[in-house]
């Protein structure tokens, strides 16, 4: 059975060229960039080369604006905690959209525990940040705003330049989580006036365990990890040079190849969305039809639950993900879906298909047929399918049992 991997948002296979590059380094370039000898200098050079390549991918003006981290979660933590704790300028409000990644959401929660006011910018039914609302929420007390270029779960993209204009007009700064967007849609920190941007290597087909934070010159942050003072004192710890070099190479390849590849994936995406929504009843698209990532097809199927859908698909070699509560560690449905779908039950029936370089348009027919069969099978055993559903009643029951 040929595996069809449609879960690239959760992890990408590494580019074969990057693997090869890293293999060479493991053996030869294990030096510590802080060492004074040849191996150390060699490592330092590799580190700085990568910095330059990553800077180029996102249009940063100076390579020194790139801080390497252990991944996007850490970058998001560093950006928000590092900025909020450093800039004691009287402003005490942090604004994030309602559909930010869990790492942003939980950092915001932590900051609110530390005494910051956190406000959540609402989105419309497609997941687009409501700009007039944002303009109301961001005020003269606002320190920093964090809104992603695009959402990896529902695919919706934002008008980041319009957002940064609003944010800067209030004297705040803008951080953006670029993880699902970089290498898929045009991202340029200078054009879009982004002050900090989070990047992940693995999403560019580079190694895991490495990421970066773009920090525009003049933006002052403090570290969240203390030690030897690496990365301009903003991220201590011996630099993971082989992985950083792999990241740099992945960024370089992306820079050259992303436009063509995005066009190709967009065609697969559109065929997937069209086939599934037209062949399966009560199947709906999550997010915006056109203002979306080229590699994201996010859908929901009424009457069934996502984890059982994903497990069934896996039995047919199709790998995907869901935002259902039952698949998550906290047993909460995805807050992203909850922000845009009509109710919890629809959120539970979600299916996220995220495309990558290894997918082919020829796979769409097979994938669609399997999904259709599995949805039918699960609906046949669902007490919710084919019956009217009074959600209000269930909601009251829930509140009742909560009150116990």
């Amino acid at each position, binding site marked *: 059975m040929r595996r069809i991997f449609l879960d690239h948002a959760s992890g990408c296979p590494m580019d074969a060229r990057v693997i090869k590059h890293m293999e060479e380094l493991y053996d030869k370039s294990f030096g510590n960039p802080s060492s004074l000898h040849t191996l150390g200098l060699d490592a330092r050079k590799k580190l700085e080369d990568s910095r330059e390549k990553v800077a180029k991918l996102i249009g940063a003006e100076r390579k020194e604006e790139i801080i390497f981290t252990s991944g996007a979660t850490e970058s998001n933590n560093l950006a928000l905690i590092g900025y909020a704790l450093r800039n004691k300028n009287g402003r005490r409000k942090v604004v994030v959209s309602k559909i930010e990644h869990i790492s942003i959401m939980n950092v915001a929660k932590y900051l609110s525990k530390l005494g910051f006011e956190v406000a959540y910018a609402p989105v419309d039914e497609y997941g687009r940040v409501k700009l007039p609302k944002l303009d109301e929420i961001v005020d003269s007390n606002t320190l920093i705003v964090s809104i992603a270029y695009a959402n990896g779960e529902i695919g919706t993209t934002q008008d980041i330049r319009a957002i940064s204009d609003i944010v800067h007009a209030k004297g705040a700064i803008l951080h953006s989580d670029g993880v699902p967007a970089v290498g898929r849609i045009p991202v340029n920190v200078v054009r879009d006036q982004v002050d900090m941007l989070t990047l992940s290597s693995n999403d560019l087909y580079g190694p895991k365990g490495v990421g970066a934070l773009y920090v525009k010159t003049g933006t002052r942050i403090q570290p969240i990890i203390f030690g030897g003072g690496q990365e301009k004192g903003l991220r201590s710890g011996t630099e993971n040079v082989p992985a950083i070099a792999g990241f740099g190479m992945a960024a370089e390849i992306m820079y050259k190849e992303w436009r063509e590849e995005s066009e190709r994936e967009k065609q697969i995406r559109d065929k997937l969305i069209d086939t599934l929504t037209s062949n399966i009843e009560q199947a709906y698209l999550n997010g915006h039809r056109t203002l979306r990532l080229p590699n994201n097809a996010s859908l929901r199927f009424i009457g069934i*639950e996502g984890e*059982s859908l994903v497990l069934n698909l896996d039995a047919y070699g199709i790998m995907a993900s869901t935002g259902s509560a039952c698949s998550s560690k*906290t047993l909460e449905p995805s807050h992203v879906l909850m922000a845009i779908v009509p109710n*919890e039950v629809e959120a539970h029936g979600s299916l996220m298909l995220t495309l990558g370089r290894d997918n082919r348009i020829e796979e769409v027919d097979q994938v669609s047929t399997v999904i259709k069969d599995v949805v039918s099978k699960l609906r046949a*055993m669902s007490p919710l399918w084919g019956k009217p559903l009074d959600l209000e009643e269930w909601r009251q029951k829930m509140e009742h049992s909560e009150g116990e």
Partner: protein
Amino acid sequence: MTYSEKVLEHFRNPRNVGEIIDADGVGTVGNPICGDLLTLYIKVRDGKISDIKFKTFGCGAAIATSSMITELAKNKTLDEALKITRNDVANALEGLPPIKMHCSNLAADGLKEAIKDYYSKRGVKLDEKKIIVLDDCPSCGFELKPFRDKSIKFCPRCGVKVTKEV
């Protein structure tokens, strides 16, 4: 989180799926808002569960435990069936991931509800002990309050029992 082979087998080929139109007892547990809903139907003959069917909206564990409880309960007396615990269900499935232990609750509770329904239709009331969920996990200290509404009985982090009968 890894399901046992047995869970996967039951999940992929669930036994006794469906409805019993003229059921003697029907139990519905869970809440679709939380992502799980189970309806269990029983027929009772000579004090024994002669037929049992289910419909489930929920995760792989919810479907597998539903399937398993129908197998465990079939042909048992009502008294025997009432004694089936969530642990029996989990054990029969060769274990469940800690975070999914509550799904075996769902099945055990559903059966209890169906039997209660059977009795109440006949004017009998089953008395119940009240079970409460602790504030924090006694083993790992995980804060349990936010999970109370999921009627959990095991710690979502470490899997130890977190309920107390009062």
